[in-house]
């Protein structure tokens, strides 16, 4: 791992010179997806659950069905808009939970040191050795399909992803003179950590959370695709793809490919955004 880090840094250094177009496109796409999810009841041309066997598997561009229909005649565009809600809210829940837990544990490990740090770090290493999707499946095996249990499982799984970065950032930041001076002035440890240390590592936290959001979205969509996530009639992009499987083999792939594209573009956009945030932190660090 010691060799990977400078290698990645060299990469981002070369990238830094050109950025705006991809970044603007990514931000615009995420904004559009979020808005369509929020405003789905207003924007969607039809009810996402209205079936019509006469209109089944209409190709994109059909009058009244801009993105076509699925095998039961439901409007793909409307389902895509409504599906955005669960597809975005569920990973957001994962990121909020794991971000909070990771920040608390990371700060605690870095500031307490000693055996607290040893126990927390080892624990995070162990959870990290668990592939997150496997952890989620293990929980679903106990709880049955549904989104709540996998959200909690993934939150646990991604806590070390955030916690390890927070810990090492807090270690670096904590070694700086200003931290010592606050302590000399008699401020309590929790106050210094939250009021003065946290703001300084916040950009890194946001960048890491953005990456975690992309991973969580992929994992949750994969679970729904496997029939282990969202329970019908609720739908997200993953379950839309799952229901389109037979239509794809019949040569009518759009009802699966369109939500698949939505997942792909959302994850790419989130990654671009997260990388930019990570890159700008590096720039600030080097300038300082």
């Amino acid at each position: 791992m010691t060799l990977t880090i400078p290698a990645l840094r060299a990469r981002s250094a070369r990238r830094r010179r050109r950025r705006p177009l991809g970044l603007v496109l990514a931000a615009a796409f995420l904004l559009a997806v979020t808005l369509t999810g929020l405003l789905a009841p207003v924007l969607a041309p039809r009810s996402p659950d209205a079936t019509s066997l006469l209109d089944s598997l209409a190709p994109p561009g059909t009058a009244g069905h801009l993105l076509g229909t699925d095998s039961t005649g439901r409007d793909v565009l409307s389902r895509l808009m409504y599906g955005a809600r669960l597809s975005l809210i569920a990973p957001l829940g994962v990121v909020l939970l794991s971000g909070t837990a990771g920040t608390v544990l990371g700060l605690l490990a870095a500031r307490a040191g000693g055996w607290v740090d040893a126990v927390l770090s080892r624990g995070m290493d162990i959870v990290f050795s668990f592939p997150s999707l496997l952890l989620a499946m293990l929980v679903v095996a106990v709880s049955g399909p549904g989104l709540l249990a996998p959200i909690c499982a993934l939150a646990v799984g991604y806590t070390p992803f955030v916690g390890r970065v927070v810990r090492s950032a807090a270690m670096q930041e904590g070694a700086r003179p200003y931290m010592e001076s606050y302590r000399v002035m008699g401020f309590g440890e929790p106050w210094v950590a939250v009021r003065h240390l946290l703001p300084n590592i916040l950009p890194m936290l946001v960048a890491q959370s953005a990456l975690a959001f992309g991973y969580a979205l992929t994992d949750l969509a994969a679970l729904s695709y496997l029939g282990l996530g969202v329970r019908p009639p609720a739908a997200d992009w993953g379950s839309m793809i799952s229901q389109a499987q037979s239509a794809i083999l019949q040569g009518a792939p759009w009802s699966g490919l369109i939500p698949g594209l939505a997942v792909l573009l959302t994850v790419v956009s989130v990654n671009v955004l997260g990388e930019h945030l990570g890159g700008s932190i590096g720039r600030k660090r080097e300038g300082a």
Partner: protein
Amino acid sequence: MTARTLAAWIGKRALGAVLTVLAASILIYGALRLVPGDPVLALTAGRRLTPEQIEAVRHRYGLDQGFLQGYLGWIGDALRLDLGTSFNYQTGVTSLITGRLGVSGLLVAYSAVLAIGFGTAVALVSAVKGGLVDRLASVAASVTTATPTFVAAIGLLALFSAGLGWFPATGAGDGFADRLWHLTLPAVAMSIAAFGVLARVGNAAFAEELGREHVEVARSRGAGGAAVIRRHVVRNALGPLLTVAGLLVASLFVGSAVVETAFGLDGVGSLLVSSVSRQDFPVVQGIALIAVLLFVTVNTLVDLALPFIDPRVTVGGLGR
């Protein structure tokens, strides 16, 4: 480094790996105990059982004992390669898994070869050529890295099976050549994300080595380009590539759950998915334990191999 420090370091790493697997196995066993209410209800998932059968289930899973005793019984059996009995198939979990290892093993190996082969090749070519090739490769790597396995699977199905009809959509085929043909699309789907990561990390590693003074001096003095690249660039960039490749190959095992389901393959991954949805807990526990074991083993082996491949990596991370 002396032979003794080396042995001590290997022993420490191996012990760490064993401890990690043990902790993970407690987590796997404990997941069952975390269920609110009676674990037997989760275990049997609504199946009607006679009181005797329920008692047998309790006994089999050590639920009539304390947590520690139950866990020790389970892990003890697992160490003797007895992973219990499936609720759904009524057969031993171990034989269920071993019967499916052939397909899954070939699939993982096939996609690892594709990901590592194409990933390193694209990384090297883009790092050496630079310019437009480099930029195109970088975009391709970004997109493929973000491509979820199931999206890749349905995309390939739509294009190459349903659309062009070049590859079969389901089944694993008979005989070696037929099997490879059947497993090509699944292997490609599984390797796409890993390819992207390797292309990026490899490109960065190669680019860094290419920019080093001794490489530039060698090239400017007219030493053969290919020889310099082979001897100085590729060899020195192997470390980070191997680390990432190890992580990726281990994660391919989990990716096989998605791909085997999408392509209707009868492997360990699809067994995991169907067992999760049927709440066939013994099978899920068994596969999860094997997956974590593989994951930790591969990563530990890669860690142990690094100092031998790259002398700049010192044992225990000292001196760097």
